[in-house]
């Protein structure tokens, strides 16, 4: 750590392909992730685009039933496992956690690289399944359809998801050990930024839930190969057991997707309100509470599955409980605006957009947690709207906000603010136009996973598809101007937003070893003028 002062940034630390593909630097690995998840996002988005186009007319005329089924499966699998789950943790968590903790790297840098390779391998296997003809099970792989009746590339897809799962597990493991052992000397748990808290909690879920998915997929594959197993009702097995195991992972997985987003927003809002986050401790506890309680509610996906009605009651009540800490967070973000000095810069627009769309998506989660309403709207577009509000409206908004917020740190360049604000506004409106009509569709009885539908639903579907076009433009814009700014943008100072976190104390972009001198722990990451002292 002695000669760091003369060293260039991590970006200048080698320009060859090898210097990227064999790097152990968490910052470079973050870039590798950013590039690969963007590719998968485009792929998943393309599938969604074709689906929206198909749904413009009630007849299934653009693509047939089989193709449509493969499209929504590909879309769900790619968006969930290859885009959203790795998005914020693997890109921004990787880049920022060591910086925020004042560490040189993650605890296990080589494992970090391995984790990226596993991710890419899993992704390629999944794409291979698509190229060979696709899969038509839905991202939920319900048995016995997936084991006994589907005639598509189920096993290859399962294997791809399985491998990707190990990438998640290794990332989670790395983060947990890093947070426990590599905090700067003197940095206590409650001196950590909420973004680190959120990724820590996410990692706990990654590590404890993902293996359950992995073994479940093994059971599924074995059942498909041998033609017998523990899920197949033909021999006395139980398809609901599969659903329990699948959702035991997949419900916590939705918090894998949203907790890091909450962490991002908890950094952006204080910065652009220039005051300390309101109720820091409560926010940290709420994050942990969501992570733990999130393991208790999976059965709310099974209210009409033939699950016992006692289980339905229990899971319904627990689902209401898990919503409480989310509500706390919404209130605290808003309270952080009180007596701040607010600048509505692009990251802030994304963050506020997140709060609004998450609140609406979360509130509709309460509709679904109510038994009688769910009996009516489960497996309809109401559910599709609910989860897109949180995952696309919420988490993707937050991911974009984070990209903008930390862009100067990552690349050392500023992006064009006007364009960025325009894109944020476009995404917000495009998103609402795409997905709000789906709530109405769902309550009126439009089932999901239908490529053709009764004509009375057409108006709403057309609105939704129109919105999707706007949304697509909104997503492509940042790709263009951010790409431009990487090469042509104005150089950024170490702390262009007047933020206070440790990551802003080093140069932009940071040097390979992050800090020229070991920064002291125990400083307040939210020491803003309006909140820190007064």
């Amino acid at each position, binding site marked *: 750590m002695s000669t760091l002062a003369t060293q260039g940034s991590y970006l200048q630390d080698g320009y060859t392909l090898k210097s990227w593909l064999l790097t152990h630097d968490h910052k470079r690995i973050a870039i590798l992730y950013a590039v690969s998840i963007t590719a998968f996002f485009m792929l998943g988005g393309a599938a969604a685009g074709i689906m929206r186009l198909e749904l413009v007319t009630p007849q299934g005329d653009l693509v047939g039933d089989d193709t449509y089924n493969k499209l929504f499966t590909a879309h769900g699998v790619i968006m969930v496992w290859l885009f959203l789950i790795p998005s914020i943790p693997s890109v921004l968590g990787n880049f920022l956690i060591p910086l925020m903790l004042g560490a040189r790297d993650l605890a296990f840098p080589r494992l970090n690289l391995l984790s990226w390779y596993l991710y890419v391998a899993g992704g390629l296997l999944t794409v291979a399944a698509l190229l060979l003809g696709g899969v038509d099970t839905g991202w939920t792989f319900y048995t016995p359809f997936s084991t006994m*009746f589907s005639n598509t590339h189920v096993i290859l897809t399962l294997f791809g998801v399985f491998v990707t799962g190990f990438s998640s597990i290794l990332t989670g493991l790395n983060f947990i050990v890093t947070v426990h052992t590599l905090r700067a000397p003197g940095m206590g748990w409650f001196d950590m930024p909420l973004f680190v808290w959120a990724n820590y909690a996410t990692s706990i879920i990654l590590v404890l839930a993902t293996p359950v998915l992995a073994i479940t997929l093994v059971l599924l594959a074995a059942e498909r190969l041998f033609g017998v197993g523990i899920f197949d009702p033909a021999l006395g097995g139980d398809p609901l057991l599969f659903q329990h195991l699948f959702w035991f992972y997949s419900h916590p997985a939705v918090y894998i997707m949203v907790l890091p987003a909450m962490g991002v927003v908890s950094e952006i809002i204080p910065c652009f309100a220039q005051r300390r986050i309101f109720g820091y401790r409560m926010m940290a506890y709420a994050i942990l509470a969501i992570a733990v309680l999130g393991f208790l509610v999976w059965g709310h996906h099974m209210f009409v599955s033939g699950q*016992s009605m006692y289980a339905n009651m229990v899971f319904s009540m627990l689902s209401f409980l898990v919503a409480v800490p989310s509500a706390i967070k919404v209130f605290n973000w808003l309270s952080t605006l009180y007596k701040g000095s607010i600048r509505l810069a692009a990251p802030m627009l994304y963050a506020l957009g997140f709060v609004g769309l998450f609140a609406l998506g979360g509130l509709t989660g309460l509709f679904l947690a109510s038994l009688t309403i769910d009996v009516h709207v489960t497996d309809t577009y109401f559910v599709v709207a609910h989860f897109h509000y949180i995952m696309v409206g919420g988490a993707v908004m937050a991911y974009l906000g984070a990209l903008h917020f930390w862009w100067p740190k990552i690349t050392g360049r500023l992006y064009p603010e006007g364009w960025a604000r325009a894109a944020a506004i476009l995404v917000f409106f495009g998103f609402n136009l795409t997905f709000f009509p789906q709530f109405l569709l769902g309550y009126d009885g439009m089932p999901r996973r239908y490529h053709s539908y009764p004509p009375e639903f057409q108006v709403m579907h057309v609105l939704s598809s129109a919105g999707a076009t706007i949304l697509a433009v909104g997503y492509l814009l940042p790709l263009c101007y951010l790409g431009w700014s990487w090469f042509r943008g104005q150089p950024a100072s170490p702390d262009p937003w007047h933020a206070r976190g440790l990551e802003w104390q080093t140069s932009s972009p940071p040097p390979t070893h992050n800090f020229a001198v070991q920064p002291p722990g125990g400083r307040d990451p939210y020491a803003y003028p309006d909140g820190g002292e007064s």
Partner: protein
Amino acid sequence: MNASLHAELRVLARIWIALLALAASTIGLALLPLGKGNAAAALVIALAKAGLVLAWFMELRERYPVLRATCVLSAAMLFILAALSAVDYLGRAPATLHDTVPAVDRPSAPFTPR
């Protein structure tokens, strides 16, 4: 130094003997007709053996509370999975009216796995 190594090995050997004894007793108990008790005995003994391995061989007794917490948290999650699934499984209404429902047959081997 050697003396302390010997002391350590003696403790480990004692644990080993205990494990073997427990293994013998679980086999023995399995041969006695205890009804539901068989399963319970097997589970309790397995838990005891696992506890010994965890505490001594894997050194969970030592300092680091975080390691113990990791172990407890993961076991707790597994327990939650089993317990809440059981609420469903054990709470289902018994299927009635079997005989009045038309018999169900299923197509055999409708696909080749891919």
